């Protein structure tokens, strides 16, 4: 993994000459494109989670209670899919700009776990819970398992966003003196910055 990411970051697309940069390094150092990517990522994730919020609140029986669930979700789903597509593409590209950093970042690792949880919830909803939609489509307040899935959806997506925001802060960055636990969770020993104990001793 370490080798693959090192090649992605420093090797891929690198030309000849001592000032040559890889594609990843060029993207990370770009004057405009990186900011455009980050801005698009944030705007489209707002569209994605904003539209999910509306559907989840309907499923919780909080808003649009006299409107059929299917009417709400069918009107909104295309916007959600649009937001999702751009969010994922820009997100992957941002990771490509600095793969080693994200790989050794505790918030990014937590974010990926929560992302899996959120996506499993989407899958469970569409493959199981939605099978009985005919029975509760017109209900002002859908049954408990539907509301549970909606609540889990809201909480997990908000947690994904919160973790994403915290990636920008260096509180637990590899190379800082910190607990063995944090160093292990981030696999700091394998990182460029290395692992340091709380006493400031280099561990590798």
């Amino acid at each position: 993994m370490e080798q693959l990411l090192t090649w992605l970051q420093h090797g891929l697309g690198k030309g000849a000459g001592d000032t040559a940069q890889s594609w990843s390094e060029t993207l990370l150092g770009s004057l405009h494109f990186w900011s455009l990517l980050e801005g698009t990522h944030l705007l489209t994730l707002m569209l994605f989670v904003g539209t999910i919020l509306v559907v989840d609140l309907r499923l919780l029986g909080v808003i649009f209670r006299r409107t059929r669930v299917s009417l709400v979700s069918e009107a909104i789903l295309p916007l959600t899919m649009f937001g999702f597509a751009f969010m994922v593409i820009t997100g992957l590209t941002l990771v490509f700009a600095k793969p080693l950093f994200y790989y050794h970042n505790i918030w990014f690792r937590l974010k990926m776990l929560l992302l899996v949880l959120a996506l499993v919830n989407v899958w469970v909803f569409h493959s199981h819970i939605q099978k009985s939609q005919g029975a509760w489509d017109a209900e002002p307040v859908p049954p408990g398992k539907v509301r549970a899935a909606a609540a889990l959806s809201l909480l997990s997506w908000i947690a994904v966003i919160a973790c994403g925001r915290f990636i920008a802060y260096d509180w637990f960055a590899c190379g800082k003196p910190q607990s063995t636990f944090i160093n292990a969770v981030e696999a700091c020993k394998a990182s460029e910055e290395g692992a340091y104990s709380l006493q400031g001793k280099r561990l590798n």
Partner: protein
Amino acid sequence: MNNGRFIVHAAISIGLLVAAMLGVAYPVAAHHAFAAEFDGKAPVLLRGKVNKVEWINPHAWVHLVVLGPDGKGQEWMVEAGTPNTLARAGIDRNSLRPGMEIVVRGYQSLDRSCIPVCKANGRDITFPDGRKAFMGSSGTGAPKDGADPNERQ
């Protein structure tokens, strides 16, 4: 309106209110807040030779070696704005090169361990020819010390 619905509405209203208040409290938070990593009460004046410059988003990093009174060198890495804001302030690969003797004004990180190197947030940089330029980002919550020409009082 039944009780359960009232509680849900109240919870959402309070949530929105808190969010709105946070929004008012931090109207111009940039990429990340100054106070989360740096200490506005710990100004540093660094004179030294540029070691390397990382021209990367969202913050460039200027590495310089500062000679102490005992003649020993201590490496500092100083956080700057984006490559874009720096270019507009006249700081780029051509004007800031390794080996150059520069002076940087800034604030040290909350973490004073200097492991593996000392860390600071840069405010302005003085080049060998005496030219001075703002090297930070606007609106991060850094102290209003006059370094930022776009600062609103």
